[in-house]
């Protein structure tokens, strides 16, 4: 089973993720002869308390994406309406992996207007549903497996 073991960072369960244009947008740009923005390697924090994976809005803007969906979300100020985007999302080849741990060519993510410092991606339960995750507290490490 492909897996990778990573240290538990002071910021939490940190994993590098790749975010890029979704498959449909890429196909449309290719058909139009337009350049394809390269995907970005970003620092993500795994957060099992988050329903939907969130990405810093500044990252989303770099791909020229428009929000195509909305959802209601709880905040300290009550319920708000947040914008959703569709991106490609992967956990790339890291550690001893010989291939990416996971690749999703379309994942609906919520924009984060104020991302935590240095953490542009919150990896939510929608992504964790595709993986197995084991935490080893005494060794301060965790393992992700496909």
């Amino acid at each position, binding site marked *: 089973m492909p897996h990778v073991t990573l240290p538990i960072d002071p910021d939490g369960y940190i994993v590098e993720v790749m975010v890029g244009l979704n498959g449909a*947008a890429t196909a449309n740009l290719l058909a139009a002869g337009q350049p394809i923005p390269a995907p970005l390697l970003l620092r993500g924090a795994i957060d099992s*308390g988050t329903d939907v994976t*969130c990405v810093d809005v500044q990252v989303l803007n770099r791909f020229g994406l428009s*929000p*195509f969906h909305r959802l*209601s979300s*709880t905040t*300290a100020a009550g319920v708000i309406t*947040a*914008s959703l985007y569709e991106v490609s999302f992967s956990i790339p080849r890291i550690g001893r992996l010989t291939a990416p741990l996971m690749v999703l060519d379309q994942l609906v993510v919520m924009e984060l207007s104020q991302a935590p410092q240095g953490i542009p991606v919150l990896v939510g339960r929608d992504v964790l549903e595709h993986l197995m995750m084991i935490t080893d507290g005494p060794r301060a490490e965790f393992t992700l497996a496909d």
Partner: protein
Amino acid sequence: MTIHRPTKIHYSELRPSQREGEKDVEWETYRREVGRLIADGHESKWVLIKDDTIIGVFNTLEEVREEGYRRYFPERFLIHQIQTWERVYCIRNYC
């Protein structure tokens, strides 16, 4: 102390979009029209909206998504499932 966190929201209580610097025309159109769409029997179907116009109602997410991308990408458009009660999602630091 128990903290009350809503898990569903009625369509009549949907909030305006929080996007900065621009009016979310499509979302405001949905908020205005959702009651009529439900009354017309479109509960659980998917609506495609561009600017202040309802382009169509579709049975599945795949259908509405394909039509939205085909017609409007890379311009903005809205697809949304028509529901009397919508789920309220939880995001870290907010719950």
